[in-house]
């Protein structure tokens, strides 16, 4: 393709090609602080392309493809090329990664132990992870958490955090402006701005962490904590996994071990401050 770059996030080496320069330049700015090994073959290939040659210039719209392509997925305008790249990277990992059990969950770690937070988008798992990542926790990832079938450890996938809507302001006031990407306004997913994880989190991205606590956060409503049984946690995490079925028995064994060894809770919280307080309390119990 005309423009291309390579990015390594956690164990995944991406190759991203584009018909336009802008999305590649934006990615390279966002991922400038990540270790780079251009000699390593890519695990996943993303293509950002114009469906028809003239659409490179005329009302340019970015189609997302690569190793895996979702048929009939709507293209994005070129101004949202960075979002297209992010969606393309997520898509390839979600559909192609087989080395680990993939959970649609954020994670942070402290003292070598991981807190895994799973929930639908809008549950606040990304924001909570981003905020904890600024206060003494190592951000492992805001979108995917990988669980190693052999060791049972959680592995980090610390891509640039995708902050949405109100979370943008809440996080922006706590971090240096240089750690924020451009504001992508009024995308199909709302306003989006990327946060570059702290340098320590990127440097530690290959360090596994033993899961110590699983939370299913829900933003909104009274502060509440509900212990969750192994069975329910198991079922909810199968729904949060994109490769549970494809991994077959290994997926079952990995997830069964995770929920047996790790306490799980459903938590609701009215605002980030009380969310963080809930997390700290449960964490203190879990690692005691």
């Amino acid at each position, binding site marked *: 393709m005309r423009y291309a770059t390579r990015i390594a996030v956690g164990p995944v*080496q991406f190759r991203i090609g584009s018909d336009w320069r802008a999305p590649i330049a934006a990615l390279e700015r966002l991922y400038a602080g990540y270790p780079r090994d251009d000699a*390593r073959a890519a*695990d996943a*290939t993303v293509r950002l392309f114009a469906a028809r040659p003239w659409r490179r210039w005329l009302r340019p719209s970015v189609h997302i493809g690569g190793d895996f392509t979702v048929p009939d997925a709507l293209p994005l305008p070129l101004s949202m090329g960075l979002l297209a790249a992010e969606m393309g990277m997520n898509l390839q990992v979600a559909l192609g990664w087989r080395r680990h059990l993939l959970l649609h969950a954020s994670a942070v770690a402290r003292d070598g132990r991981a807190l895994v937070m799973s929930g639908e988008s809008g549950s606040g798992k990304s924001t909570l992870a981003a905020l904890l990542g600024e206060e003494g926790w190592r951000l492992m990832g805001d979108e995917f958490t990988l669980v190693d079938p052999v060791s049972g450890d959680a592995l980090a996938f610390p891509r640039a955090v995708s902050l949405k809507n109100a979370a943008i302001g809440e996080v922006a006031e706590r971090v240096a402006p240089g750690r924020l990407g451009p504001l992508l306004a009024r995308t199909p997913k709302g306003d989006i701005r990327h946060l570059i994880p702290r340098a320590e989190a990127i440097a530690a991205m290959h360090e596994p962490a033993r899961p110590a606590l699983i939370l299913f956060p829900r933003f909104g409503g009274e502060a509440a904590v509900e212990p969750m049984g192994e069975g329910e946690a198991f079922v909810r995490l199968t729904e949060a996994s994109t490769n549970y079925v494809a991994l*077959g028995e290994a997926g079952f064994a990995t997830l069964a071990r995770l929920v047996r060894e790790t306490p799980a809770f459903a938590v609701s919280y009215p605002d980030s401050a009380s969310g963080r307080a809930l997390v700290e309390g449960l964490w203190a119990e879990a690692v005691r």
Partner: protein
Amino acid sequence: MSAAHTLVDLLAGRRDAATLGRGEWDGVISAARAEAMLATLAHRLADATVPPAVAALFADQRAAAATARQQALWEAEMARRALAPRGIEFVLLKGTAYAAAGLSCSEGRQIGDLDILVIAPDVRRAENALLNAGWEWVKSDPYDDHYYREYMHELPPLIHKTRDRMIDVHHTILPRTHRITPDALAMVSDAVRSHDGFAVLSSADMACHCAAHLIADGDLQGGLRNLWDFHCLTRDFAAADAHFWGKLDGRAELHGLRATVHRAARLARDIYGAELPPGWDRHVTGDGWFRRRLLARDDWGRSRNWLLQQAFYLRSHWLRMPPAMLARHLWTKWRKR
């Protein structure tokens, strides 16, 4: 040298994996993925010297393929449990059949839908039995449904509502309206048992079906994999039976597939280095178009050569139905776009 060329050179053993430059792996991997052959390549290169990241990716692919194979065979077992009590016998086709029969082409082979062949009089009963056992129609429009039932060699696809897996119930191996009409009854009656009790086509019929699927049905999209199947099948069958090529020739004649099977064999020779017996080892000008079509894949996994693709698309339809019907069909399809 395109990525697709490097891919087939590696599969054929013409190129040592250790000689690939660091920039070449990306292209080979993307081309292999696009051809649904990455796990096949991973098996082929299991003992080769490859960079650590590639070795890790290949190991993932082999493990995933082993699980997928187990799931595909389980799906076949589910079909058996739905159909056997009604006394409906079926023959496994394509990927699931290769896996059930333990054939070498099934190593790492991606298996999509479950394809089965039943004799034409059993088709409606088979459909009912499957509907009663949890399969349901994939939502499709009335034209497509009518088209399948009237003209195709298979029922409209059914999907299982809890396992989310598709089954294609065939009553012959090429569309009813196709210029070639293989003898499906002979195929079913000469089917053989695999070691776990599934019926699969006889060796010669299996190769005939593989060639028909590759050359006579469809536009050669993903044809490298089907050709690899054909290459492995014929190579292994010929190694086990000195008269295999002769039997294949006779059987292909019976099905009206002689030219098709011969072309597949020549392409397997040209692309994967297959050794052909005298009488098969000829050179035919038209093959060049097929080779070019099969290898039209760039190092980003994209199809190349749009015009050639369109030509093969039209060819597939031309073979599939008479001209007046083709015109009607394409008109209906175009209006629905």
